[in-house]
């Protein structure tokens, strides 16, 4: 088993004819993902390789039966693309785009709040169930199919590093996903932890956080109460100087939270195995899992 994506995922790619969209669609297909449609307004009727392109998501969904959308639309139009997919009833939306204005994402988040849709990202590498389905830009071959570990991360490249080390240790993954580095995103740590906890094939979880906000602190508290599977954690940004890129009203909102050390302490206090040296994460996982 796995979470959110598997063999039944029928993928639609928004922005499929752009350079990045094209490249990564091909990579996903090569990995084995079932890509059933693409959307580029104005290019309906064309094909990208063998994938039919439609003008809008509703049409693509109706004609191709997609249940998941991957978004490669440039930042000025990405929020619109997410809302279009949500409005068309797509169940899972994975937005890769980086650089969406916060104001746009706030609207998106409130717009989809009461809809039966899950948004992953934006500004994320996507999600992969190794051996079954890849929806994103991660290096597929780094992953080892068959489980039993789930990986969730706020970072992109760090996720690849973590997965690489797991694979080198002979530890496979059920599902790996990045929830994105933007301040306002769709799926959060807790959603993923909940799903991994409920997934029978997942026996342990790796969680990679970073400085800023309090998502890690909240996740740690959640783990303490609700997660019985072992969790290994890592926080990026231990060496970032305090105060950089933090407006002083921002500091008021979060009080003392947001620092790497604060997050590490919170995680340790909740029974998470915190790795303080990324180079040894694989070994730590081998001993914990």
């Amino acid at each position, binding site marked *: 088993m796995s979470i959110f994506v598997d063999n039944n995922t029928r993928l639609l790619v928004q922005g499929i004819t752009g350079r990045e969209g094209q490249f990564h669609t091909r990579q996903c297909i090569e990995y084995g993902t079932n890509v059933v449609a693409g959307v580029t307004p104005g290019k309906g009727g064309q094909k990208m390789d063998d994938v039919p392109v439609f003008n809008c998501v509703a049409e693509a969904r109706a004609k191709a039966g997609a249940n998941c959308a991957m978004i490669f639309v440039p930042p000025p139009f990405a929020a619109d693309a997410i809302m279009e997919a949500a409005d068309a009833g797509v169940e899972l939306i994975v937005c890769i785009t980086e650089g969406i204005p*916060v*104001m746009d994402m706030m609207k998106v*988040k409130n717009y989809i709040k009461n809809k039966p849709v899950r948004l992953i990202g934006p500004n994320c590498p996507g999600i992969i169930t190794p051996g079954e389905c890849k929806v994103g830009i991660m290096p597929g071959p780094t992953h080892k199919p068959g489980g039993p570990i789930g990986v969730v991360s706020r970072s992109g490249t760090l996720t690849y590093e973590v997965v*690489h080390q797991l694979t080198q240790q002979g530890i496979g993954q059920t599902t790996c996903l990045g929830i994105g580095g933007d301040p306002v995103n769709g799926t959060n740590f807790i959603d993923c932890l909940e799903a991994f906890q409920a997934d029978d094939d997942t026996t342990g979880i790796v969680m990679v956080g970073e400085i800023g*906000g309090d*998502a890690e602190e909240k996740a740690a508290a959640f783990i303490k109460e609700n997660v019985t599977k072992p969790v290994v954690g890592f926080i990026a940004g231990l060496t970032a100087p305090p*105060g950089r890129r933090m407006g*002083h009203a*921002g500091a*008021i909102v979060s009080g003392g939270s947001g620092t790497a050390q604060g997050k590490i302490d919170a995680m340790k206090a909740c029974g998470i195995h915190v790795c303080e040296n990324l180079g040894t994460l694989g070994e730590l996982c081998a001993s914990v899992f």
Partner: protein
Amino acid sequence: MKIHEYQAKELYRKYGVPAPEGSVAFTPDEARAVAEKLGGYPVVVKAQIHAGGRGKGGGVKLAKSLEEVGTLAGEIIGMNLVTHQTGPQGQTVRKVLVEQGLNIAKELYLSILPDRATATNVIMASEAGGMDIEAVAADTPEKIIKVHVDPLLGIQGYHCRQVAFGLNIPVAAMKEFTKLLANLYKLFVQTDCSLVEINPLVLTADDRVIALDAKVDIDSNALYRHKEILEYRDTDEEDPLEVEASEYNLNYINLGGGGKCRRRDGGERVPHHPQRPQRQRHPDQHFRRHPALRRAGPGRGGSGQESGSESTRGGAHGRHQRGSGPAHPGRIGPEPDHRQEPEGRGPENSGDRRIVSPFCFLALMGEREQKYN
């Protein structure tokens, strides 16, 4: 992106948020000319740098005569202003705002910013405004009221009233205050701010509310739709290395001392094979390929010196480290600074850098064409 107080006040006036009369001046002569037009004393001379805490640092002075305006402007322009927000090395002042001095009855605090956890815009306000707001937030957070606004709904009358009553605004100033807040919210949304902050927002003896200070930070991701705001960019206030990197569309943050960068992944960047940077290339090689990054290179002799001569925020920090010996060949980024982090993180942390940083550099260089399988 940060802008200056005088620019923020321009925006405020445009949106109907009252601010004192005043203008920017680059020389004492210009400062005097502005003061003459204001026609009345006291006049306040305020250092314009991209950091707050100027009052406590000696960058805000009251002048009672034209002569004094010139003298104070002469003192402030060119000074190295150190505040809790500039870091110990301070920031050179290149211009001042000369404005009306107001008769302050009460100093309030008012700000709006996006709240990431709830995806709402949060209005924060306090009766305990002024130069000690950080202490208020730390010691008596209950003195700060918060009102959340749904971004799809926008600000409503009841939001404004909630804040107004929370601040004990006198009845006579009520209407003016709610109008100010609604206008400030409009400014916040329409110019894609990541923060608008007025500290202090003053109540005058004759029941007017006026923004004495003005801070506006803009979401850089939204600058593409605010060309007029881009004109406000002041690269004198930014780290020279970061300015140079930005000319190449690189997202680089100087952390002082050596070269380091924020990861730039996700989005439309193409990821790279994890093994590659460690095995086939020394990460330093990536520095060599870009002048901006080359100069930020990790503690390599002369080139390191170069980056130490500028007035970067981490300048002092960097010089200290460069004195500490030759570069560690396997390490990227600065030596751990034991002064700043007394608990001291030694070699156990170097693994972190060794493995993480090459990705940063690769992603940063945007080598998107590389195949990863």
